[in-house]
């Protein structure tokens, strides 16, 4: 245990990690809004009148929730080109996998949020003379949003953690840069610990906020 920590190689090469951080931020920044949008569309499909569409969205959600993310990314990078003849760049493949995965979870959040609003809210809004769109905008959506915020924050956190898996298909994000640095300078312990701490600093505020919000909401409800 008489190991002396030597962070010099990490400190001197901080631009390498910074570059990786930029890529991680890009992956997250593109994938999170995109998966919310797609997730919303899917949740509409899950409430559709057409049985076939409902079944299709169910299959989509279950497939992406019940397979490991690493397979999804590898599939889009190695298998998808064979099916379509179009080769994705690592970043595009990673984005595809991350977005489809997260959108499956997001659609469940939307679905749960909409289902949690009692029918009386709709009826009450209609009774005071609001149109369907008004009821949705003024009564339903504000309540749904408040209820879904912690769940979406948690999804954002999971997504941030999942971006690290993009390193497996050679996307040069934080994890990839950290591994490159650690194998170049033979300081794996210091480098990987630093990378872990960077992830923690990025992710923890979100988790802290979500749990605070959840508690406040639980008290009110």
């Amino acid at each position, binding site marked *: 245990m008489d190991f002396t920590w030597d962070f010099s190689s990490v400190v001197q090469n901080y631009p390498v990690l910074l570059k990786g951080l930029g890529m991680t931020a890009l992956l997250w920044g593109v994938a999170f809004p995109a998966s919310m949008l797609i997730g919303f569309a899917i949740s509409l499909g899950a409430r559709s009148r057409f049985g076939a569409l409902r079944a299709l969205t169910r299959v989509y959600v279950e497939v992406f929730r019940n397979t490991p993310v690493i397979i999804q990314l590898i599939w889009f990078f190695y298998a998808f080109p064979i099916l379509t003849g179009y080769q994705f760049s690592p970043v595009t493949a990673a984005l595809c996998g991350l977005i489809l995965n997260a959108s499956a979870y997001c659609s469940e959040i939307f679905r749960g949020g909409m289902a949690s609003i009692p029918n009386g809210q709709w009826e009450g809004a209609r009774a005071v003379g609001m149109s369907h769109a008004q009821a949705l905008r003024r009564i339903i959506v504000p309540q749904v949003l408040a209820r879904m915020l912690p769940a979406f924050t948690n999804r954002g956190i999971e997504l941030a953690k999942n971006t690290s898996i993009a390193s*497996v298909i050679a996307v040069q994000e934080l994890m990839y840069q950290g591994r490159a640095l650690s194998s170049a300078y033979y300081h794996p312990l210091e480098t990987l610990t630093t990378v872990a701490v960077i992830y923690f600093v990025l992710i923890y505020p979100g988790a802290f906020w979500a749990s605070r919000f959840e508690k406040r909401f639980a008290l009110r409800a």
Partner: protein
Amino acid sequence: MNYEWDFGAVWAHRDMLLAGAFGTLKIAAVAILMGVVIGAVLAIMRLSKRRWLELPAIWFTEFYRNTPPLIHFFWAFYGLPVLIGVSLDPYVAAIIALSTQSGAFYAEVIRGGVVSVERGQWEGARAIGMKPAQVVRRVILPQAAQRMLPPFLERSFELIKTTALASTLAYSDLMYQAMQVNSITFRPLEVYTFVAGIFFASLLFLSVLAHLLERRLSRFTFLPAS
């Protein structure tokens, strides 16, 4: 789009994939067991009113819950050996990574279950003369266990999916074996689709099973009527 699917390549290497499936099952089972032990220890530390026990447990769970699982694998495989001076093989490193991260989540599950039992249950059981150990065994745990079951199962399914990351340490789990088969046969579409299908089918089967189990248990409830 006129691709000819050919699962013959997958079938020809079924023994490799089967070995991988066993590898996945092995680390999943061991990691769940060890994760529960670690989680129980952390939960007890957090439930104790002693600050010096509580704080390290909080730091541990928060750190593991808020960092990517992949880094735990690399840290256990490349970082930890430097610290302890013993090199670890991929199997041990994968077990360490999986059981510590799932332990952090199980700790929250266990703590949440215990905290959810109201104070009155404690006081009532004490009032009719039970010793603290008896209260825990006969009153608190049966109620807490029922509340812990759903999040525990959910977390365990998460763990099973996370085992696929052990392939990055060249541990021969299903994912790694699939990569090997792919490099022999150059049939990534069939191989990876097949492996995704295996994960999908097993996890779906397990969650149906979990659902049935939860329904069955809810029939003879330990929980007080609300």
